[in-house]
């Protein structure tokens, strides 16, 4: 839903929800016809899936993250949102892995009839969107609907989606949203924002609306006015989270760093480790690249166009009749990183990285985007020093 007309965020517009308020939230969203999607524990991971009720949220679960490492761990405080990014992101729902775009039929006289895929009837409510992931949604908004050609399938899913952000109070060891300016506090773009507070005064959520629709929903939930203790505790825990980022990006313009690093020696180093498996692109909440598949049935007279995710790590991604443009793993890792942190600005007006850390966690060999950026930064500084020494 559009967040253009956010009501003023004052103390009066804030309120406190208890656990029963969260139960009611899921219930009301479902009653409104939304498919509620949120985090839940399945297959030893916090995944995103449809929720039948708030009891399916990962209450009492946290995550332990490192490069190439993901474990869910029990928490003693019963918190429901003290976990950071899991293997999926909201793009799995807004920009799904596989979408049929149109079908075509050919009559015996050769006449072709093309039918566009009807709009998706699903109206999503996303519960538990992390601030970094909200930024990722807004980045994909610009890619898929911000240009001359708008992607209808994305727009239909996105327009109907109700976004409930839960601010981040427990960053993971692979998180760096502070470096990317996407969290841990929520930026605008949500319908409803929650901050989970667990302390001696109890387990509760500070809530504020970002849209009239969010305010209207909030009024329907059992709530009480925000008290100073809850507001203060919520603010402090988000501020504390900002100081506990597991990773940072180098203190430089990443866009300029990438543009100036195209011939860096570091690419050879990372290419020696990178398997070009594409996991980082699948887990990344902003990676949007796709390929098309044209299929027919057995008669050959009914054809379909499907679009599915593809990775810039695939050798075929840059295929031309004369061979692949990016044949070496070095050039394909460079393409991914320089696009994500650099040329994304030229193409879509922002960074393509939100600092969620998924690419670090889900890389089978533990390649760390922040470590690579730091290494490129250091190499650039050394080169600069060398030039200055040479000039003396």
């Amino acid at each position, binding site marked *: 839903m559009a967040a253009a007309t956010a009501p003023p965020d004052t103390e009066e517009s804030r309120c406190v929800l208890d656990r029963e308020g969260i139960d009611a939230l899921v219930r009301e969203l479902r009653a409104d016809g939304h498919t509620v999607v949120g985090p839940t524990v399945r297959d030893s991971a916090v995944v995103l899936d449809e929720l039948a009720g708030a009891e399916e949220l990962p209450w009492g679960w946290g995550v332990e993250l490192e490069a190439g490492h993901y474990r869910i761990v029990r928490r003693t405080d019963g918190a429901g949102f003290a976990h950071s990014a899991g293997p999926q992101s909201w793009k799995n729902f807004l920009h799904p892995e596989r979408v049929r*775009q*149109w079908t*075509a039929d*050919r009559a015996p006289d*050769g*006449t*072709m*009839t*093309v*039918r*566009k895929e009807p709009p998706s009837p699903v109206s999503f409510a996303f519960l538990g969107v992390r601030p970094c992931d909200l930024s990722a949604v807004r980045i994909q908004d610009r*890619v*898929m609907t911000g*240009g*001359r*050609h*708008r*992607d*209808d*399938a994305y727009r239909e899913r996105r327009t109907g989606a109700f976004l409930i952000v839960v601010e981040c109070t427990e960053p993971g060891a692979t998180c760096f949203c502070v470096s990317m300016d996407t969290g841990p506090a929520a930026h605008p773009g949500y319908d409803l924002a929650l901050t989970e507070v667990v302390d001696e005064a109890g387990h509760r959520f500070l809530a504020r609306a970002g849209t009239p629709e969010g305010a209207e929903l909030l009024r329907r939930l059992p709530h009480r006015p925000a008290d100073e203790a809850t507001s203060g505790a919520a603010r402090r825990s988000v501020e504390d989270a900002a100081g506990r980022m597991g990773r940072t990006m180098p203190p430089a313009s990443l866009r300029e760093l990438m543009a100036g690093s*195209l*011939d860096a020696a570091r690419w050879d180093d990372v290419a020696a480790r990178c398997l070009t498996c594409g996991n980082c692109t699948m887990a990344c909440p902003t990676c*949007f*690249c*796709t*390929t*098309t598949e*044209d*299929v*027919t049935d057995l008669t*050959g007279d009914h*054809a379909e*166009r499907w*679009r599915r995710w*593809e990775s*810039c790590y695939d050798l075929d*991604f*840059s*295929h*031309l*009749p*004369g061979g692949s*443009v*990016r*044949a*070496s793993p*070095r*050039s394909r890792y460079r*393409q991914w990183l*320089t*696009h994500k942190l*650099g*040329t994304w*600005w*030229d*193409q879509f007006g922002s960074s393509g990285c939100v600092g969620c850390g998924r690419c670090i966690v889900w890389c089978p060999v533990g390649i760390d985007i922040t470590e690579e950026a730091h290494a490129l930064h250091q190499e650039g500084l050394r080169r600069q020093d060398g030039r200055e020494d040479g000039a003396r």
Partner: protein
Amino acid sequence: MTAAPLPYRVVGNRAESTDTRTLELEPAGEALTGFRPGRFAMLYAFGVGEIPVSVAGLRHGVLSHTVRGVGAVSRALCAMRPGAQVGVRGPFGTEWDLASADGDLLVVAGGIGLAPLRPLVRAALSEPEAHGRLNVLIGARTPQDLLYRRELAAWGRPYCGVTVDRPAPGWEGEVGVVTALLDRASFTPQDTTAFLCGPEVMIRATARELRHRGIPPERIRISLERNMHCATGHCGHCQLGPLLLCRDGPVVGYDRAEPLLAVREL
């Protein structure tokens, strides 16, 4: 909009060489508008797939596309008989922008790269007073691979030259790279706009030579090729550094392209 292809009827299919044919397409119903020299369409062969093909002619509502049959889709398109239907999406991308070129014109084509330049040459010939001298330099692999042979005699005022990589019996023309024809052309470099299309290696060599001769890089326009699936800026395939060539290209100024083409495997 995510446009689905519109059905177009094949009304002509002419052999240009052993593997290259020019299809003429008429809308079977609703027509696409906005095609300009340099821009391209996505052509869909029923059930086989879709490829980007530059517009090679724009006359009386008929779209011409010259297709070299090198893959499954392009071979299927080349095999289309008159009366068959293809799907067309477009137009996409940037145009040659002939209107901004008021001085001499230098058109340099290599192989199938002549196809997107043909409507530009035709447009320049139709309004000779709007430009300076028109030079057309064409390179082909062999004499048999030369496109639009019947048309060439009327092209180029004052110069239209052809060179081939490998001559055949009876060939009395030039043999060698296309840049060797530059000395025959008449243009004032500082006041010339160049339009280049062909294999990337030919584009690089020609653009370098033209810069050397004094044509400003922003007046050297090149048409680049990358893998393309959607043509709408959403699939990511056609990136060349900061450029999405379906959106920011295929026609790009050499001032922007030169530093990008200098990076291997970008």
